[in-house]
């Protein structure tokens, strides 16, 4: 039997597409954990929340998932800003973010998941859109639009955020707060106001990622947990606050997961991210592109 080259090539291609999507899932954590030092382990729960909102809107009004994600982004921004305010007043200001702040986000993760179970049950939910069925065929390569569209949206999202962070005043202030909050304070800018803005943006990306997730696969409340290992592995491997680093790491993880599930079966893929994370922490905790 010859080496299944086409199978491998397709596994790599679908890994790249999957990785593109993982970048959108991770970008919020790159901002909150990487730049603001807020360990928001509830991020995947907000992604699932976004998926469910898209599901409701798509099911009742028939609106396109991507359009819904744009419409709901401001609402997610406000939700994020409100959560940061509670976090700031209760933990950050008192210097208790390490133990109690973590427990707070763990509680949020849990409450969101259980509330979704209570309202929607544990059935898998899915959306309908014209680009979910068909695939592009380029030679032997198969590009399902259901993966290609989220990957493209994700790349656009990352590009826009990178531009925002580097060109706009507010974006540069966010980078400044991640480097030295005290210095920013001396420039008469309130770090907590900038962090609130940044955390709001990070949760807004969770809403968009939720729309992408439910385009790619049917969603049930507990699948968010599978993403905790992935997003933090990608974020750390990518060098914490670096968006290009996160993209590279996400593609890498996507390829490894895709090859594993093609050749060994999909039931192993959740363990890959953890192996990735542990290996990164043990060998190169500053990440691929980290300094």
């Amino acid at each position, binding site marked *: 039997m010859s080496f299944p080259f086409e199978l491998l090539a397709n596994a790599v291609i679908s890994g790249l597409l999957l990785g593109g999507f993982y970048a959108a899932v991770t970008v919020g954590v790159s901002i909150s954990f990487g730049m603001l030092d807020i*360990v928001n*382990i509830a991020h995947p729960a907000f992604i699932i929340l976004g998926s469910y909102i898209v599901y409701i809107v798509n099911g009742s009004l028939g609106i396109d998932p991507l359009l819904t994600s744009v419409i709901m982004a401001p609402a997610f921004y406000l939700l994020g800003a409100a959560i940061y305010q*509670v976090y700031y007043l*209760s*933990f950050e200001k*008192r210097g*208790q973010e*390490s*133990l*109690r*702040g*973590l*427990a*707070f986000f*763990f*509680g*949020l993760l*849990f*409450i969101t*998941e*259980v*509330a979704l*179970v*209570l309202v929607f049950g544990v059935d898998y939910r899915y959306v309908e859109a014209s680009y979910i069925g068909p695939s592009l065929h380029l030679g032997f390569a198969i590009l399902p639009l259901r993966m290609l569209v989220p990957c493209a949206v994700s790349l656009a999202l990352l590009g826009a955020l990178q531009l925002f962070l580097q060109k706009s005043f507010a974006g540069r202030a966010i980078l400044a707060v991640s480097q030295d909050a005290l210095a920013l304070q001396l420039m008469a800018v309130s770090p907590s106001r900038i962090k609130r803005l940044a955390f709001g943006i990070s949760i807004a990306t969770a809403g968009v990622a939720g729309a992408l997730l439910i385009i790619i696969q049917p969603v049930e409340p*507990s699948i968010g*947990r*599978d993403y*905790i*290992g992935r997003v*933090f*592995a990608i974020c*750390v491997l990518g060098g914490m606050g670096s968006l290009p680093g996160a993209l590279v790491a996400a593609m890498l993880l996507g390829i490894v997961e895709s090859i594993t599930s093609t050749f060994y079966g999909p*039931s*192993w893929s*959740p*363990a890959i*991210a*953890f*192996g990735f*994370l*542990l290996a990164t*922490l*043990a060998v190169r*905790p500053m990440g691929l592109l980290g300094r």
Partner: protein
Amino acid sequence: MGSRAFILLAIAVGAAVFGLSLLVHNEYFFFAGYVVLQYVVLATAWNILGGYTGYVNFGTAAFFALGAYSSVALHKLVALPLPVLMVVGGAISGLVGLGTGYLTLRLRGVYFAIATLALAIVVQTLIVNWDFVGGSRGAYIMRPQQVPIVGNYIEYLFLVMLALAVLALVTARAIERSRLGYGFSAIRDDEVAAEAFGVPTLRLKLLATTLSGAFMGMAGAPLPYYVTYLDPASGFSLAYAVNAVAMPLVGGTTSWLGPLIGALLLGTIQQVATVTISSAVNLLIVGLLLVGFVIAAPNGIVGLFEKHWGARRA
């Protein structure tokens, strides 16, 4: 109170609880009581690492289920008495705790927390793919009807878990008042300063992780005999992880009393709510209590009492 007096007192209280429970002729009491005691062990074990050293473990379910699955695996190989299974389960979970700690504890504490979150998923993946212990289908365990001396098997399980709870509490209290405990709280308050003063921080942290993981594994070892059918979804239930975090934080993390109060309170509420409302709702209650307490009462119920009494005295 000296340590020896406390041990005697704890054993006396344990014996009294068991003696009184024999007066109850309702099997449900033992089933419910077992779960509450199991949570006392889990909460105390979590607090040895989380409360004393300040390192958050979200992977209680992994350590707990490792104990449970080591019992399933051993059960298929040889017939061993339950206490031996608990020692084996505790040893395995303790070693996994040591390994995870060794890889991540040299970095910032938050990496350890994230690693434990992911650990639960990986161990679950391994178990799901391991056919010997039933894989994703789960495993059936036939438990004996009768046990010599104690009689009914569920009463025996209750007694074993009660003994483990007493052991865990005595250990936690002994740690609190020893050099070890002072080392732990030095790490919690300021790790760099502790290191500078010659506290062997990494070694102490690894010790805490191992001990905490071992107690969780011991608490999990009798689980297959309690449920008689164990599948990965129930063994790795997020409820264990959430309760192990919520109970100490609701009760208070600075002393052995906090996890005990939290576990008794939340454990009993959940037993009542499961019967009267639904199991999903009672998990929601736990989540809300956790968030409410960390925001409003940072030192838990014990802290509230201390504040109240302190104000009176002044």
